[in-house]
């Protein structure tokens, strides 16, 4: 890295997770000079998505936990007399208990190379590692399987191409389109996917660290539309909502069309369900219907509504998705209403999933930030913050090159804060599991289904487990496989929390011939469990000694939607700039008059122009791995 960064910015953002990225975009959009750095070599932090090999290296990294305890004190020389240093953490402590399992012949995969893998040292990192948000067309590159062995790249619509989320279901690439050219040894059963195939087709995977869906009337969708960031991403409707009842997976009729088409409901059930759902939509107008049950749980309230047990189960666990024992009537009604209000905007379920994985979303906001002049550096650890003794405010950061960069505002992701800052912070944990399976938990005529399944607690006091199953047309897994994400708030380690559910839904005995019932269940080909720190809901006051102009963003929360991150970003932005609008719609490109100087770096994507902005394209930070390596 020959050129140094400019030494002065308005806002410095540490971490490229969703809230930080939204904030970076909002700040750049309102005219602030933004520096956005991440110590990792990929975008998204714990919101990232990985190719299969990328995930394997992520697992390795988190299992080894190499101690980077070389507390390098050199940088403190840069601190002036009337200043104070606040060191930042040098290692990521957010991931624990990573355990991966391969249910197949792993040895056979020895020496198998990922199709299209770069011969260079592994940048295999995140899918987005090579994505340069500022670099115009090259943004879509990382998502296209460039491998020659893999045959044709998926149809022209890469991740970067614009398509309003409004039209997403229609424009979602058809599965066949992308996969037709995939190599398939003739004469082999297409269903039988081996571990070596997974490795070889590893680039077809985009495995999310955090598993979420977008509520189609949620805050994130509104923000994507308002800020026009939606044009950087494509979405697919979740196609069905499932329930797990009496040991069986069933489809939940949740929309009017579903109820009409359902074969499992009797006529009277149809009416009762529709009647209740219609009531929930405007329950506030009929207080007499629920007032006397306000004190009881939602589950008890449902029992009074002449609903059959299966309908009660559907509403409680799959529609409201609330706890049977804890949720009060009003909360349940609110949750049901939220679900129902999201129906029908983009399809028959309330959820959207971003093609190529959840990790796309932070990158989309980064791109908006870069378009408005934000500067990006990945693999750029920051040693610490500099606090002005007199004002008590933070003045600058010192990066790992020892460069001091001053700014007015600092946005820091929770995991960057040192242990001493967080001594009083009490974190929750999220239990996660990711499985690659060979068939869907509920096979129907169409193989390409995006399903959400809420599994009620198997034993009392445990949380419900949210299962999201993705098919290959979401561009997150290879053909003939399904990517299954399990999420719940932790009570123990991820494996202890989630394995019982995995055993209920899937067949873990890979090769053994088992009785018929087991055969019907999907086979797990590969699995990983891990715990992720949930820093949402941490009070700011519980951080020790943070200057007032340092704002903390939390990592992913365990909820299904993204409202928490959006709300957080909006709140912080309004604290920083109370008079500015949050992510207003961008001006029409035709109305913009470019200065010659500004035009060059942003449009060309090549960092060869003005010395004043040597890094305005993020290419350097992420692309030139070799150069970076020598520095370390």
């Amino acid at each position: 890295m020959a050129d140094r960064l400019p030494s002065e910015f308005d806002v410095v953002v540490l971490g490229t997770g969703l809230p930080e990225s939204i904030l970076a975009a909002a700040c750049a959009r309102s005219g602030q000079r933004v520096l956005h750095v991440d110590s990792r070599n990929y975008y998204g932090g714990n919101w990232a998505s990985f190719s299969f090999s990328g995930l394997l290296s992520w697992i390795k990294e988190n299992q080894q936990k190499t101690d980077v305890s070389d507390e390098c004190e050199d940088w403190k020389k840069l601190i002036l007399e009337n200043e104070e240093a606040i060191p930042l953490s040098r290692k990521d402590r957010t991931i624990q208990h990573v355990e991966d399992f391969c249910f197949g012949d792993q040895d056979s995969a020895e020496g198998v190379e990922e199709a299209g893998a770069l011969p260079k040292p592994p940048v295999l990192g995140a899918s987005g590692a090579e994505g340069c948000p500022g670099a115009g067309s090259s943004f879509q590159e990382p998502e296209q399987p460039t491998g020659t062995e893999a045959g044709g790249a998926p149809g022209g619509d890469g991740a970067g191409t614009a398509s309003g989320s409004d039209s997403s279901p229609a424009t979602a690439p058809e599965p066949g389109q992308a996969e037709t050219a995939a190599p398939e040894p003739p004469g082999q059963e297409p269903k039988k996917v081996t571990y070596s195939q997974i490795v070889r087709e590893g680039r077809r995977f985009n495995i999310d660290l955090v598993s979420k869906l977008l509520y189609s009337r949620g805050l994130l969708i509104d923000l994507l539309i308002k800020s026009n960031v939606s044009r950087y991403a494509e979405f697919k409707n979740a196609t069905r909502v499932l329930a797990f009842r009496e040991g069986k997976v069933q489809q939940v009729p949740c929309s009017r069309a579903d109820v009409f088409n359902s074969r499992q409901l009797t006529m009277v059930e149809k009416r009762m369900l529709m009647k209740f759902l219609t009531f929930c939509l405007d329950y506030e107008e009929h207080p007499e219907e629920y007032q006397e049950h306000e004190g009881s749980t939602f589950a008890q309230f449902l029992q009074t509504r002449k609903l059959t047990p299966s309908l009660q189960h559907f509403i409680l666990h799959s529609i409201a998705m609330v706890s049977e024992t804890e949720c009060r009537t009003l909360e349940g009604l609110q949750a049901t209403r939220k679900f129902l209000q999201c129906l029908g905007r983009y399809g028959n379920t309330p959820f959207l999933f971003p093609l190529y994985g959840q990790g796309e979303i932070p990158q989309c906001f980064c791109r908006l930030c870069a378009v408005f002049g934000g500067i990006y550096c990945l693999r750029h650890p920051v040693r610490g913050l500099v606090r002005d003794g007199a004002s008590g405010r933070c003045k600058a950061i010192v990066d790992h090159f020892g460069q001091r960069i001053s700014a007015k505002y600092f946005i820091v992701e929770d995991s960057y804060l040192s242990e001493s800052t967080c001594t009083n912070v009490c974190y929750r944990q999220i239990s996660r599991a990711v499985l690659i399976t060979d068939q869907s938990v509920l096979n129907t005529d169409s193989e390409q289904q995006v399903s959400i399944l809420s599994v009620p607690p198997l034993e009392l006091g445990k949380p419900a487990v949210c299962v999201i199953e993705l098919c290959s047309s979401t561009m997150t897994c290879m053909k003939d496989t399904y990517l299954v994400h399990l999420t719940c708030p932790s009570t123990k380690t991820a494996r202890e929390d989630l394995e019982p559910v995995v055993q209920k839904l899937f067949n873990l005995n890979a090769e053994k011939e088992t009785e018929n019932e087991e055969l019907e269940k999907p086979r797990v080909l590969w699995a990983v469990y891990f715990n992720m720190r949930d820093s949402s809901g941490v009070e700011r006051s519980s951080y020790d000694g943070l200057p007032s102009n340092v704002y903390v963003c939390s990592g992913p929360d365990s909820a299904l939607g993204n409202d928490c991150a959006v709300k957080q970003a909006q709140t912080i932005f309004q604290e920083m700039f109370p008079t500015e609008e949050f992510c207003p719609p961008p001006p029409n490109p035709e109305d913009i008059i470019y200065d010659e100087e500004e035009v060059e770096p942003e449009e060309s994507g090549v960092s060869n122009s003005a010395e004043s902005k040597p890094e305005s394209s993020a290419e350097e930070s992420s692309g030139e791995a070799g150069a970076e390596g020598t520095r370390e």
Partner: protein
Amino acid sequence: QQGVPPPQVLSLTGSILAANPDVGTCWNLRRRALVELGGDWVPGELQFAGSCLAVNPKSYGAWHHRAWVLGRATAPPGGREGRGLCERLLSSDPRNFHAWEHRRALVAQEDLEAELAFAGTLLSRDFSNFSAWHHRLRLLAPTRSAVGKGGALPPDRLKAELELVQNAVFTDPTDQSAWVYLRCILSRATPPPRIICVYVNREDATLAVVFSRPVMVNPEHPDLSVTLDGSALEGPWRSGEGRPRPSHTWLCDLPCPDEATSTGRPLLQLGITWGPDSTHLEVTLLPDEDEAWWQEPVVDRELFWPEVGVADPQVLREQVETCRELLELEPQSRGCLLSLSLLLSALDPRSHAQETRKYLQHLKEADPLRLGFVCDVASRLEAALGVLGLGSGPGDLWLRLPDKSMTSLPLLERMVLVTHLDLSGNLLRSLPPHFAALRRLQVLDLSRNRLQDLAGFPPLPRLERIWLDGNPVSHASTLSPLAACPRLAELRLAETPLGSAPGAAAQLDKLLPHVHVTL
């Protein structure tokens, strides 16, 4: 306009229509230019109309142009292209009735099951789609040859359709489309018009033929022919209302008895033949009789809802049970209340009279916007119950329908033999011209209704007394149709605005000199 060369017309109209495909003038100019131009412009024009439909998928002009072009094509392009267009348009708007109509034209002779499945798919996406239901109905409609027999659906098919309807109405009973479909699929065949009554009166020297539905009898070439003692009568036929329009009642004058035999009362042997269904009826007027008639016996279930006649009563009973079940859950469902009322009356109007009345009353409360329609349905029920209770035979025949909240007077064609009709205390605002069917009516009690006038009241040959007390009749001139009733002797107008108006008596005396008027 005349001088402009056709290619220029095409390009000019093309640019206007591409922006706004609803300018009829441009389409007309374009068509004229195309005819002038000659050559094979069919594919190009089809494409152009298609692109205009992309601008406005419901543009009448563009659809018409398409149809015109296709009509001109020597070898119409295969259905594939047209169906592609329809499918595109229907996927963006599944209720585009133009596209449905076009699709129907294309697939007229093609696979029925595939089409049913297609309509089914769109319904499964959103069943509030009248067009898709209608498409099904048209596909399942009895073929032309079976019209009249009203070809019932195969039981399996009917069951499947009724299940579809049930799914829809239980999912959303407020959606009208499925209820309409239910009624349509049950009432598959409107029975063709037939003669239900023939009445001949010696004094009036008139033969009246009454049909089950209004028909048109052409005076020049009548489908209806009559013979008197073996020799054809020339006619001419006139409608009971005196207008050359379709009517229930058609009248034919009998030849006046010869002067020589005027005192005699010959036996009249009449033969009536109705062409369309070759019905032949014989009515004999005996010498010592003044009148003679033939009347078809009334069938309960055909009276209230004639179209449902072919449906299996078992199917109707099952539907009644379904509706009752739904009504328990949704007591205010309008579609359910109406369907249930119709079904019950079709099954057995008399034994379900009270229940049906109750449902119709609920319906009036649940659906105030369609109050008039519901009242008419209720009126039909009352009239049907009255007709069913009617006796027959010579002598006076009374039909009493007082205080029934009737707003209309249906089924008059079934009341030909009534001599005394009591309609007092109803809500009638006007009298239908079909009154002409009441050839024997002598006394008509219309007191306490809402009649302001008697517009359209036909001349009734035997009407002697008419009671209009308590109606808002205010002008003597509105009663002028009564002047055409030859036997009218008594008119009651007590408690009417006219009754208390000064000079009313004089006016009425002038208008109706032979009538005794009570004011």
